[in-house]
């Protein structure tokens, strides 16, 4: 049992490091090759975790080899468009100018049911609203509707609106001061203490969440029981 425990701990950390190296994408956003890699790695880790007759290295070495190959593939993907196309494939247009390109759908083994499912997921119940649909390499479908079906924006209405979108920066996260964010935003601890005092708070530990944006607007949510 102790063997199982230690093997599991070791493999767990190797998997965490491995998945961290693979990037931040979620399962649904993985390229086919990345999805296969994830499945193989989890299987490789499970075998030596359960079978003590197999050396741990028999799990670690293939996992490390796969991760290294994956990193090399990513590097080549970045450097070469042709290589990227070869490994990940190319996006395929399946609706052009409102016309369904059946050959392209068949080539990608993409069924009408799947097309309708993807359209419904994006809020389109009718093909007539869709000008372009592109089957991405991740398997997702990007839909570009006709202008008359597109959501209204100020630009469409020729309206001049002030751009007031700002990026909030987290200063306090569940009682913990994000020092790098604080100094990076141009503020210091004295300023933070003043902000807390203005809100009748005595310590950052009483704060659940505090952000500041580029305009200096502060949002502070006190922890329950401190408000």
């Amino acid at each position: 049992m102790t063997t199982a425990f230690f093997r599991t701990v070791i493999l767990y950390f190797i998997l965490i490091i491995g998945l961290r190296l693979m990037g931040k994408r979620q399962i649904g956003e993985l390229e086919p090759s990345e999805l296969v890699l994830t499945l193989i790695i989890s299987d490789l880790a499970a075998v030596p975790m359960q079978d003590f007759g197999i050396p741990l290295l028999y799990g670690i070495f293939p996992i490390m080899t796969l991760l290294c190959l994956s990193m090399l593939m990513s590097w080549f993907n970045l450097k070469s468009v042709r290589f990227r196309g070869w490994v990940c494939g190319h996006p395929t247009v399946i609706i052009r100018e409102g016309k369904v390109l059946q050959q392209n759908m068949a080539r990608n083994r993409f069924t009408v049911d799947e097309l309708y499912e993807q359209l419904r997921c994006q809020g389109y119940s009718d093909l007539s609203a869709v000008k372009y649909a592109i089957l991405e390499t991740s398997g997702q479908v990007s839909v570009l509707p006709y202008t008359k079906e597109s959501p209204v924006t100020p630009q469409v209405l020729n309206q001049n609106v002030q751009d007031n979108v700002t990026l909030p920066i987290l200063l306090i996260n569940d009682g913990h001061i994000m020092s790098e964010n604080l100094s990076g935003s141009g503020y210091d601890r004295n300023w933070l203490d003043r902000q807390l005092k203005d809100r009748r708070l005595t310590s950052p530990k009483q704060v659940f969440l505090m952000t500041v944006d580029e305009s200096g607007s502060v949002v502070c949510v006190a922890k329950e029981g401190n408000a």
Partner: protein
Amino acid sequence: MKALYIPTALLIAIMVFSLWVGRYVEQRTDDWISLLEQVEETAAGENWTEAGERLRAAYEDWDANQEFFHTILEHDELDEAESLFAGALAVCEQEDDGEFHVLLAQLTKQMHVLAETQSVSVKNIL
């Protein structure tokens, strides 16, 4: 370029280590096979005391390598060799020539199997 060099270096390190393991296992099993051949020759001359001593020496050398061998080889294969060693030592004490010969042949074969599992060959790869 770090994203190129680190995985490349790691892959090379893994490959070099794997090749070294194969070579090391082959060398060590060759040593034990030659010791077992000496044991067999000695037993063929009915010198059971010396055969027993030589077999015990081979076993002690084998046993001293088991910690590392268990990290690189499947435990079933090692346990099989371990049992054959134990059997051969017991039969050697009984001075049973026929069975001793069979067990030594099995043990030698098992050593070949251990080396074979780590060798780089088309048969293993495919």
